[in-house]
């Protein structure tokens, strides 16, 4: 018999052992568990398959056409159209993973949180760097940029590098920084050579312009950038009613007396080996004149008061007398 047709109401009861179908099986539904290997083509919707708790498919050899609703446990081998994946692959889980090795896939929908299509990757949620390859992460050398000299012509977008030993590391799209170069200028052509075309004209004519190139396609992580950032800063008025104009990572300043202040950090520095830089104007209300310097420490004994929690600074004259400053600026780097 080439074809067995099972009509309505006809069931196999009391069958022990295997039932082997050697031809085509046509059925409206399978009410029960389908366990074992299926060899051949499965055509139609598998939506009606049900099992407790799941449908277990040992090995399916051949093409599966149609929708699969429910959990699939086991390996899925074969091909699927992109339309099918885009529409129906949502929610599939496998152990350990479902691997899609078809490079022509244009859209992968993972739940509702992430999509990958020709316009890029759109993710709603969290991406951790452990899931990114190292090549896309910025390195310290990337952060310092590629420095060389360039020969440029005023109002021209062309630049010739004089020390092209690192030109192979310059890519189109990289940002260029240097004298006479507008902020935001990028390399638009000539990557990898000493003759570059920039996105904007160069404003000067010199044969010794110092240029720096910065990668445009690297992700900067806190591990790379952390040591290069200003850890704390404050701009305050040290005259009249002393007040803070703006600040970062500064919980308060302490007015210790005339021209004598302590900057207290909101989050402490890792140690006291940071650097302090700053400046001050004179007390403008008093018509102050002359230079003002920002000194670290105090004139009280040997109290330098430079700790991980804060730093004491003083605004002094050239004679080392203290004075209030209208614009006192302090920045901390570590």
């Amino acid at each position, binding site marked *: 018999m080439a074809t067995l047709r099972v009509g309505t109401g006809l069931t196999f009861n009391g069958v022990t052992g295997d039932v082997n179908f050697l031809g085509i099986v046509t059925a409206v539904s399978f009410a029960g568990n389908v366990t074992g290997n299926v060899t051949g083509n499965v055509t139609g919707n598998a939506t009606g398959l049900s099992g407790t708790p799941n449908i277990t498919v040992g090995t399916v050899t051949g093409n599966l056409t149609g929708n699969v609703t429910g959990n699939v446990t086991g390996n899925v081998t074969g091909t699927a159209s992109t339309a099918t994946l885009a529409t129906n692959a949502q929610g599939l889980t496998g152990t350990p993973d479902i691997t899609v090795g078809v490079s022509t896939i244009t859209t992968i929908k993972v739940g509702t949180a992430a999509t990958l299509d020709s316009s890029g990757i759109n993710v709603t949620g969290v991406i951790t760097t452990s899931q990114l390859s190292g090549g896309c992460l910025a390195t310290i050398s990337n952060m310092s940029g590629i420095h060389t000299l360039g020969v440029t012509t005023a109002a021209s977008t062309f630049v010739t590098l004089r020390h092209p030993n690192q030109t192979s590391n310059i890519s189109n799209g990289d940002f260029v920084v240097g004298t006479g170069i507008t902020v935001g200028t990028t390399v638009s052509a000539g990557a990898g050579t000493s003759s570059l075309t920039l996105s904007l004209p160069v404003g000067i004519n010199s044969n010794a312009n110092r240029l720096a190139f910065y990668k445009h396609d690297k992700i900067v992580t806190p591990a790379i950038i952390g040591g290069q950032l200003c850890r704390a800063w404050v701009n305050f008025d040290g005259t*009249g009613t002393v007040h803070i104009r703006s600040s970062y990572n500064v919980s*308060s*300043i*302490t007015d210790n007396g005339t021209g004598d202040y302590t900057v207290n950090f909101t989050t402490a520095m890792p140690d006291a080996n940071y650097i302090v830089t700053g400046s001050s104007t004179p007390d403008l209300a008093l018509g102050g004149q002359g230079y003002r310097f920002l000194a670290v420490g105090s004139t009280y004994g040997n109290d330098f008061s430079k700790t991980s929690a804060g730093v004491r600074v003083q605004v002094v004259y050239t004679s080392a007398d203290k004075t209030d400053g209208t614009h006192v600026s302090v920045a901390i780097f570590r």
Partner: protein
Amino acid sequence: MNQRIVYPNPEGGVCIVIPSGDLSTESTAKKDVPTGLPYKIVDVSEIPSDRTFRAAWEDDFTNPDGHGE
């Protein structure tokens, strides 16, 4: 911030803490006033704006609002 924290300056006079707003005034006081020193939280209007005699400023800390931690 319309509040200031006042505590005695070990070198003489008083210190005035100007909070940035990163933390509450109370938290700022506990953190930025030296350990063990009493402090008072006052309105900014209570602090003189004339600093001509800044070194002569004084205050009474017999009933402080707290002590530096």
